[in-house]
């Protein structure tokens, strides 16, 4: 998952990396500053040492010259004792001084060291000559020796005067270098303080940056928490949580918003599905209520007129009386009536076999035959294959009654009613045909309309049958209404359904 491209991201990892580099650089800065300061101070110390040595050195040369002068001018040879050691020591100091100034000596320093070398050589010569003179070991005449001594002493004095002249220059240079170094130390101190001040500012900035970053992150986390709480209270809450940072948190908020949208979409889908199911269920419940109400009303009607069991027992008693009085026709009629009543009472709310339904209608037909005599002839056309099919009870009786009541109401003689139960093209056709008055297309349309509606109707029987069949066969019921001059057919085309168990 990526954030929108318009934003440039600095992730927390990158921030941490930058901070790490900053800390390393700051550490290096501090280390270099300290190192620089230490180096400059070390150089300063060296210069001070060098100056002290130079001073000692100069004093040593003065001492040698004084002893030599005393030896030469006043014959104070005792002052010459150990002068060689002093000369050697001066040479050693000269070497040290030269070593101290290696790579940073000015021309004056080089000249100074060379002059000292020359002077010490001259001192050695003069001292050796004085020693010989003292011991009377000279190779030349006294006059010549005196002249030689004078020349050598003069040379040494010239040289020591040059040394003094150069010493001033060298010493001045030393002082100047020390001053420069002190200025450098001052500058370094100032720079160090500046660096410390800047470091302090940077540290403040880093702290501020982190405090701000953490505060911002905490604020954004709080926003996320509040938003999550709103979603918990109301999953359909519309809105996004907006995180302005350019880090992982922004990525997280982006993903979180997407997730909320996905969940809300899924919830909406579930709700819509649930609504459809509820509507379907309500329709079914309404239908069942309609059926129940109808049946209840029918039962209440029966109950209001006669107690069914009492009637049934009475009919059986009459049937027995008719048998004892040898009145077979009466016996048959009462038996048919009793059977019809029993069937109705027993199977009102359970599906029945189509074979039982046809047997029951035969009782009804018998009664109607005795009623109408030759006026209406009944016939049956029932496939044996259909006898085991289950359908709701009391389907055929309303249809036959409808034919008698409406179709043949004006027929005086020659009326015919055919009850047909057959399978055609994989469907079960239950049809009642008569040769009555029939109906025109408007009437047909009205009957069909009444079948589908739940309001009042003059043909309650057909509508009741249609609705119960529709409920039983999940709406797969096709009404059959055909009327010609010769024949009128009323019935239903149903799906083939063996051993249906519930109404």
């Amino acid at each position, binding site marked *: 998952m990526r954030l929108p491209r318009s934003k440039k991201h*600095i992730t927390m990892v990158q921030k941490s990396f*930058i901070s790490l580099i900053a800390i390393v650089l700051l550490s290096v800065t501090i280390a270099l500053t300290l190192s*620089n300061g230490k180096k400059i101070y070390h150089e300063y110390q060296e210069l001070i040492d060098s100056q002290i040595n130079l001073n000692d050195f100069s004093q040593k040369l003065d001492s040698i010259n004084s002893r030599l002068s005393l030896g030469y001018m006043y014959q104070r040879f005792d002052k010459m004792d150990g002068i060689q050691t002093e000369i050697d020591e001066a040479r050693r100091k000269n070497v040290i001084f030269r070593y101290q100034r290696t*790579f*940073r*000596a000015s*021309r004056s320093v*080089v000249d100074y*060291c060379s002059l000292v070398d020359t002077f010490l050589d001259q001192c050695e010569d003069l001292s050796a000559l004085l020693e010989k003179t003292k011991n009377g070991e000279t190779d030349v005449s006294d006059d010549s020796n005196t002249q030689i001594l004078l020349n050598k002493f003069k040379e040494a004095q010239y040289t020591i005067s040059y040394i003094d002249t150069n010493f001033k220059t060298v010493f001045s240079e030393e002082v100047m270098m020390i001053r420069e170094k002190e200025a450098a130390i001052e500058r370094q101190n100032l720079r160090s303080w500046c660096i410390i001040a800047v470091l302090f500012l*940077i540290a403040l900035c880093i702290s501020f940056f982190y405090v701000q970053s953490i505060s911002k992150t905490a604020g954004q986390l709080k926003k996320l928490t509040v938003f999550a709480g709103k979603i918990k209270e109301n999953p359909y809450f519309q809105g996004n949580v907006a995180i302005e940072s350019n880090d992982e948190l922004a990525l997280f908020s982006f993903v979180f918003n997407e997730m909320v949208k996905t969940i809300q979409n899924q919830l909406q889908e579930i709700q819509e599905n649930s609504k459809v199911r509820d509507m379907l269920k309500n329709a079914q419940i309404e239908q069942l209520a309609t059926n129940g109400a109808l049946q209840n009303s029918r039962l209440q009607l029966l109950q209001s007129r006669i107690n069914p069991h009492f009637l049934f027992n009475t009919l059986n008693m009459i049937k027995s009386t008719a048998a004892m009085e040898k009145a077979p026709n009466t016996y048959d009629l009462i038996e048919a009536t009793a059977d019809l009543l029993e069937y109705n009472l027993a199977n009102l709310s359970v599906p029945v076999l189509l074979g039982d339904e046809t047997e029951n209608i035969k009782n009804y037909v018998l009664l109607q035959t005795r009623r109408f005599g030759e006026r209406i002839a009944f016939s049956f056309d029932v496939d044996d294959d259909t006898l085991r099919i289950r359908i709701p009870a009391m389907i055929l009786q309303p249809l036959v009654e409808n034919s008698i009541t409406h179709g043949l109401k004006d027929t005086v003689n020659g009326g015919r009613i055919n009850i047909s139960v057959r399978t055609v093209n994989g469907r079960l056709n239950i049809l009642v045909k008569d040769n009555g008055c029939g109906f025109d297309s408007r009437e047909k349309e009205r009957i069909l309309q009444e079948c589908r509606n739940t309001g009042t109707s003059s043909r309650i029987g057909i509508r009741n049958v249609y609705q119960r069949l529709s409920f039983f066969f999940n709406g797969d019921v096709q009404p059959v209404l055909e009327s010609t001059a010769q024949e009128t057919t009323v019935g239903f085309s149903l799906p083939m359904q063996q051993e249906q168990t519930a109404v």
Partner: protein
Amino acid sequence: MKTGRYSTVFFILIVLLSFVSCRGKQTVAAKAADDDPFTHYRISCIIPHKDDGSYWSFVVQGLQQGGTDFNLDVKVYYPSLNYDNEQMIDLIRMSIAAKADAIVLPGSEYTGYQDILQNAKDKGITVVLIDTPMRNFTGSLYVGSDNFNAGKLIGQKVAELSGKKAVIGVISGDPEYYNLEMRLEGLKSVVNQHPSMKIEEIQYDHFDYLRIQDIYKKYVQNSKINTVICLEGTGGMAIYPVIKQQPRLKIIAFDDSQEGLLALKEHYYCGLIVQQKFNIGYYAIRELNDFRKKGRFSSDRLITPVEYKDAASQK
């Protein structure tokens, strides 16, 4: 974006800070660390006249430029008193005692000068004479003008200017300076060729301003003298301030000092003999550099040409 920009600025600041902490002024020690000064080839240049923008200042510039170009340690010494031979000898003695590798200086016939230079040579110090050679000092290099020919050139110009009828008053520096004597000889060689030309008087100024001006005034008062020749540079410089009051004489001077050039421009001077001052100093160091490498000079004389400048050439 804002955070990113701040981060970048912050990062750059830290890097700059690191550089600042690294930055340190290059110390004398660091500069000198390239090589050890104690091993340098040390040249002591003993110049008779202090740096005052005159002839010797340009010679010194050449010496110092040579030292820079050839990485040689050139140090210039001046006597407290200009042209003071005793002080010059003292400086030579000091250079010997300081064990310089070479001494560059003008020659002089002053007593003791030759001995001290010989002493330097005996101690292995190379001696280079600039501007002025020495009569009896051999085994060294001379870098400078051919002074005899320079004197001849002056004589020829005087002859041209005067129609070979000139009575000349000469102002020279010091008879101990061989170069001035050579110039005088050159001048004389031309004058002697023309019967109507003669040198009426020769005066030595000892490189002293007031004395030069006195000599000049004396020549002006001498009705016979119609031409003044200054054989050394100081003369040309010193006459200019007084010539406006007494502009009677034809003057030819030595060296292109500021005053000499002004006098030439204003037609007080007829001409100037100009030496290659800078090159004299520069070539001396260059030759020493060659000597340091090869152990010998290509020749014992390196002559730099002179030229005559007049007002026309100034334009």
